[in-house]
């Protein structure tokens, strides 16, 4: 049991200073924080940037990076005697292949990604300039919390972190909590394979996001704002720090704390993220209670995604109706990430509800003959090109048996073996499962091993239980990761059955 007054929230930073889970580290960090040594050890072995001490280069093993030749990078680095670790998607798919140096700085080996051209009529306008007058915050204060929430409602703003939950509900829930300390948390842990929009917001418009977060803090009556940024995004952290300094005059009432992630996709899940801020293993909590009732240190907590908050200033200044009108099938504009077999991978701000063809047209057209796409990162599985006219929005993709998620679109042309593509998704979830609940902990391995046996032998009977296992992962898992972790396999099997028939394996 931790000592009274223990400084648990310092555990992760101290572990990072120590360079990870080396012998003796847990005892030293335990002594400094009052958290039991074993507990510290358990925390240190959870996070991929901490669990193995020592310096090494990390190379992304995501699908897009593999397609762009990351294997050759790994081989070349190893040939120079360098220690290389292959890691989960680094959130740079538009610049593939990519890596991370020993100081966790990004190694960008590919071409830079594109963005939409500047246009002041775009709510986020990534190519525009940040404006540190914070006039939207001033306007929000004039309107008052209830009117701000009413504008969000009129704007129909749906959470951009993946679930599409109406923002005004959560803001209102925090407003209606009994007075007391409350927190606002920005979810900047962007880790869904194929997704890199929050990165671009933080790099290009950190002030916009910060202003949205400040408005959230004002409405929630919070005095402390946490920004949880994935540890692989060092440049985003520097960019945010710059914006906090530039906006200091407007934010003296707000205590802003940037918390760095340490390598765990699951910490993007809201309750796992709260555990990570508190200094624990990033294992999702049971809901209820929801964070708005009992979040960080048990206090009412409002959490939103970076992009969600970046939409807020324009909603406040130009009105909810204006924002809603920017959408096509659903309200607002949307940052679409697109990578894979397209001409100009990047982040495009388009009306919510464009089709794949419209999006890819903005992104320089298809490369080769398209075969499949993931509409919302690995979690959304694969759809065949017959869905190219389906609106890419929250409602439409659910109807298509998929989901919009974080709008990380990955396009695959017909040179890709869909069974191999599915395998990449399965490996990702297996590596990133927190391991807390059995359907996900065991199910992820069962699925990946079955697919491996099929790929080794060509015998399709190895996949006979895939549907049953996927069903239980969906029904029985605690959080969204386990619920969708089979989708790369089951959606590929459903839409590309030929790729999963008995096949002859070349010796």
């Amino acid at each position, binding site marked *: 049991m931790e000592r009274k007054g223990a400084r648990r929230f310092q555990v992760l930073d101290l572990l990072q200073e120590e360079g990870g889970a080396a012998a003796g580290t847990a005892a030293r960090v335990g002594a400094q924080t009052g958290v039991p040594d074993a507990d510290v050890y*358990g925390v240190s072995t959870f996070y991929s940037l901490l669990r193995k001490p020592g310096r090494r280069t990390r190379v992304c093993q995501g699908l897009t990076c593999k397609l762009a030749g990351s294997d050759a990078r790994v081989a070349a680095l190893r040939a120079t005697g360098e220690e290389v670790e292959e890691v989960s998607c680094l959130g740079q798919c538009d610049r593939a292949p990519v890596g991370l140096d020993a100081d966790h700085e990004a190694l960008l080996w590919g071409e830079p990604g594109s963005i939409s051209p500047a246009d002041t009529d775009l709510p986020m306008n990534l190519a525009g300039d940040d404006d540190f007058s914070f006039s939207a915050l001033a306007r929000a204060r004039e309107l008052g919390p209830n009117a701000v929430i009413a504008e969000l409602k009129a704007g129909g703003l749906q959470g951009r972190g993946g679930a599409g939950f109406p923002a005004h509900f959560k803001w209102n829930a925090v407003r209606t909590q009994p007075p007391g300390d409350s927190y606002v948390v920005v979810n900047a842990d962007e880790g869904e394979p194929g997704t890199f929009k929050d990165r671009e917001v933080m790099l290009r418009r950190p002030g916009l996001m910060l202003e949205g977060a400040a408005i959230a803090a004002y409405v929630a009556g919070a005095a402390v704002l946490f920004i949880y940024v994935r540890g692989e995004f060092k440049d985003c952290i520097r960019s945010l720090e710059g914006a906090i300094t530039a906006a200091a005059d407007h934010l003296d009432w707000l205590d802003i704390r940037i918390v760095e992630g340490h390598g765990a996709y699951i910490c993007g899940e809201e309750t796992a993220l709260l555990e990570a801020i508190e200094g624990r293993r990033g294992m999702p909590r049971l809901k209820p209670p929801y964070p708005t009732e009992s979040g960080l240190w048990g206090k009412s907590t409002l959490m939103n995604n970076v992009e969600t908050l970046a939409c807020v200033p324009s909603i406040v200044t130009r009105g909810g109706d204006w924002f809603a009108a920017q959408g096509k099938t659903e309200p607002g504009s949307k940052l679409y990430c697109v990578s894979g077999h397209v001409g100009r991978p990047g982040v495009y701000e388009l009306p919510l509800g464009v089709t794949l063809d419209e999006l890819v047209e903005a992104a320089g057209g298809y490369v080769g003959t398209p075969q499949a796409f993931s509409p919302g990162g690995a979690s959304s599985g694969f759809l065949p090109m017959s869905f190219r006219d389906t609106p890419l929005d929250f409602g439409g993709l659910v109807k298509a048996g998929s989901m919009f998620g974080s709008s990380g679109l990955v396009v695959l042309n017909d040179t890709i073996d869909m069974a191999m593509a599915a395998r990449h998704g399965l490996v990702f979830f297996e590596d990133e499962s927190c391991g807390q609940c059995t359907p996900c902990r065991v199910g992820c391995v069962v699925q990946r091993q079955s697919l491996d046996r099929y790929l080794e032998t060509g015998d399709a009977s190895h996949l006979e239980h895939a549907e049953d296992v996927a069903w239980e992962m969906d029904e029985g898992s605690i959080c969204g990761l386990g619920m969708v972790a089979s989708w790369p396999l089951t959606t590929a099997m459903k839409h590309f059955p030929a790729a999963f028939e008995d096949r002859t394996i070349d010796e």
Partner: protein
Amino acid sequence: MSDTIRLVVDGEEVEVPTGSTLLAATARAGADVPTLCHDPRLDPMGSCRMCLVEVEGQRRLQPACAYPAMEGQVVHTSTDRVERHRQVLLSMYCADHTLDADGLPAERALGNQLRAHVEAFGTGPTLPPIGTPRAGREDPNPYIHFDPDSCIACARCVRYCDEVEAVSAITLAMRGSSTTIATADQVGLLDSSCELCGGCIDTCPTGAMSEKRALGLLGADEETVRSTCNFCGVGCQLDLHVRDGEVVRVSSPPPGTTVNDGNLCVKGRFATEFINHPDRLTVPLIRGDDGELHEATWDEAIRVTAAGLMGVKERYGADALGFVSSSRCTGEENYLVQKLSRAAFGTNNCHQCAAT
């Protein structure tokens, strides 16, 4: 707020105290909801997913052990969906557990709840073993054995060590399918803060955490004798497991049934070797004029002791005597010692060695 709430479980209306979980409500209705990570002494974790039930109005199945019972809820514990969930889940557990020749989760000295659930509910598809390697450790401690291949990562041991013992010697470590139980830096328990209370063994549902000396012994050929621990005055109840007239191990009665609520300390749980030890004194010994110890009867021994003590009192006065009772004595025994001291010998020089 009213003190009780009413809800419907499998068609039967039940009433439970406000603040109860669904597990309390389903138990009240007599429904057999299987659990693994649940221990009434611990905060619910809800991670084993064994206890999921259907709650009308909830899209997802919900963990009975953690989900709050609410007024008017309608709960189903054995629909086709719940049954299928249990079976496929148990298939997954079996793919990650030491199995016996019949393909069932291995039997263990203290039982294996996983095996019991497989027997009661059956399994779905037979899945190949996943064989994930897990970090293990050399641990020369005399009492506690940990088998990573039978561990289901329910964290009952970890939560017990934290929430009941307040020791936190062990932790969940690694993540994903490599998740396992570890000490800080994987040192042996003797080098950790562990107090060897053995509570982690007691709470473990599968026998992955087990008693070293009872490894391989199954409960079936044992006689169980309920007894009271005589190491201190608390009066913890324990179950002595007797094989061929010898105590082979000790377990605690289930939580909630006796004063010690399923807990024991290192002495009560493990220190039984003295029972059959050749050096153990089983009859009183009196030192004779020849300087040697000779076997005697209790009457003789008490007479000699009394005479010796009375002799001191007569020669030097009662306050030359002092009575110190053992910390193993009960309150009643301590009462008798002070009675002996004050009434029989006339001195207030009496003390109990556990008094501070």
